[in-house]
């Protein structure tokens, strides 16, 4: 018998560690994704998770230190771990305490375009009864300025808001007069067809940003967005040019919407955004509202087809970056900021508690207040479930303590929803009660059958899978996350 013990007897014993809350979900046949309370993730081989949870993971396992550093477990050497985790969690939810920061004013529902997929059910441009009144605008501004947020964004929506520039001028001027110590940012969501030098001078004077729609190359854009003269693309491109000249390059951004005709054109769409010298693109599916439902545009492609489109687009964008051309996909950037930083970019669709009312609110052209842009789209389809009150008839407390707002927020809170509560991707995902109400008349929906869940889960898994297998992509995604 040797006088020495075997080497194994000198190894640390199974440690007395304490688990911190975390969740795990399958990534592929071999791995799980595990996320801690602050949303930090690790990819773990499937055999590691039972060992970890059953307190059988030895301290000399290379993963032990990483799990401890990322706050999945704590032991006697890490007394500060729970405090650090608490700070990260507080940082993650910091935005919530500021309450509503995005205030959307629908200054008119009139529009001179006639897009088949219009999600707001626009009215023709001669129907003045669809303009917001001065009295309603003043009352809505009072509600917006009552928000505890030190920073608010006022976004002018339509219809086409440039059909009611007088009211935009009034709201901007009044907001600046009444803002006290608040910081206010103004954005106009416009198709740019009616932009003119005089109004651009006003925008320049008040530092107003422009958000426009660009669906892709000329033929695709004009097919998606009909207007008299069939020249929507020409108007938009010219508009982008004159806005940049008057306001500066970074004052105009663009959004695209995916129709069935877009599905085979993702490279063309990305190339169009590159040609117009945008720094990135937001590849967006259609939402189940407005004319998108009435004209059946929404039903023309399913989640799987959209995911193929999205993944192809992402591949194309990554290839550009590998060639040294800096270009981003903004939806991925938003998710990556949630995955790779302690911050939350505050994208309403990907918030839990849901961002309806508490992150964004809509003052409609008729003075009614809606919990989100999608809520007013639903109202135009006859479902006023998320109408919270009227700007002149109800107080701030009436509106923001309305059961019509609190119940969907509370019921849809993903932390306590079936399947979401134990999903590793919950920190990146959102509750979106309006989407589920629109499709199921239920705030939660059945998650195994939910398109929202299927679409987002697939994107989360895809992004993590890409980072896990490619160092270049990991670095690129870190860059996107930190610029979001």
């Amino acid at each position: 018998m040797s006088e020495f013990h075997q080497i194994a007897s000198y190894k640390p014993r199974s440690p007395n560690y304490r688990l911190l809350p975390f969740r795990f979900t399958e990534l592929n046949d071999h791995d799980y994704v595990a996320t801690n309370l602050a949303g930090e993730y690790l990819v773990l081989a499937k055999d590691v998770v039972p060992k970890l949870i059953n307190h059988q993971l030895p301290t000399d396992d290379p993963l032990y230190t990483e799990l401890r550093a990322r706050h999945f477990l704590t032991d006697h050497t890490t007394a500060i771990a729970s405090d650090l985790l608490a700070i990260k969690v507080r940082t993650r939810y910091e935005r919530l305490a500021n309450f509503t920061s995005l205030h959307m004013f629908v200054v008119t529902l009139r529009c001179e375009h006639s897009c088949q997929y219009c999600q707001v059910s626009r009215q023709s441009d001669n129907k003045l009864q669809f303009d917001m009144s001065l009295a309603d605008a003043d009352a809505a501004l009072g509600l917006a300025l009552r928000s505890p947020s030190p920073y608010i964004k006022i976004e002018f929506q339509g219809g086409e808001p440039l059909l009611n520039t007088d009211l935009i001028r009034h709201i901007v001027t009044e907001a600046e007069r009444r803002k006290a110590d608040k910081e206010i940012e103004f954005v106009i969501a416009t198709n740019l067809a009616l932009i003119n030098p005089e109004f651009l001078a006003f925008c320049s004077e008040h530092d107003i940003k422009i958000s426009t729609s660009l669906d892709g190359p000329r033929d695709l854009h004009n097919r998606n967005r009909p207007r008299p003269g069939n020249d929507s693309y020409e108007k938009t491109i010219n508009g982008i040019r004159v806005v940049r000249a008057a306001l500066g390059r970074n004052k105009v951004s663009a959004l695209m919407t995916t129709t069935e005709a877009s599905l085979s054109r993702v490279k063309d769409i990305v190339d169009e955004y590159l040609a117009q010298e945008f720094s990135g693109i937001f590849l967006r599916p259609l939402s189940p509202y407005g004319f998108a439902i009435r004209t059946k545009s929404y039903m023309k492609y399913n989640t799987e087809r959209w995911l193929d489109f999205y993944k192809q687009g992402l591949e194309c964008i990554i290839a550009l970056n590998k060639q040294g051309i800096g270009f981003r996909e903004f939806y991925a950037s938003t998710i990556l900021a949630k995955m790779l930083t302690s911050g939350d970019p505050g994208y309403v669709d990907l918030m839990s508690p849901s961002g309806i009312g508490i992150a964004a609110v809509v003052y409609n052209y008729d003075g009614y207040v809606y919990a989100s842009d999608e809520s007013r789209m639903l109202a135009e389809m006859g479902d006023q479930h998320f109408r919270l009150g009227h700007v002149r008839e109800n107080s701030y407390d009436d509106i923001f303590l309305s059961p019509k707002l609190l119940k969907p927020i509370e019921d849809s809170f993903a932390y306590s929803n079936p399947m979401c509560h134990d999903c590793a991707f919950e920190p990146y995902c959102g509750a979106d009660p309006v989407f589920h109400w629109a499709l199921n008349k239920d705030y939660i929906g059945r998650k195994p059958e939910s398109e929202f869940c299927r679409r987002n889960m697939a994107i989360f898994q895809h992004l993590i899978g890409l980072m896990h297998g490619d160092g270049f992509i990991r670095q690129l995604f870190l860059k996107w996350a930190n610029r979001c």
Partner: protein
Amino acid sequence: MKVDVTFDSAAFSVDAVKMACYRFLDRFTSDIELREGRIVCHLDFGDKLAGPSPDAHVESFKKEVLDQDLRLKLKAETEPIRNLILAHAFSKTGLIADE
């Protein structure tokens, strides 16, 4: 197509099995029966099943029950923070009256 899957109730909780059934509701409906120390799941795939075979779904379902069992164990050891987060969300609004 109908398949019965059985779990020992000494090893698995009914909650773990129910949560796994929920996660598979887009693939089969399920009836859960407790019988002589066993949890018997009657799975009904109907006639609309697309994609993998029922056997593959049953195999995934069994793995999911194991996952759910681990999740319950993890949950029992850690604390939910839901109310803390919601209180934080509304903390500066002036909408919550002092207790």
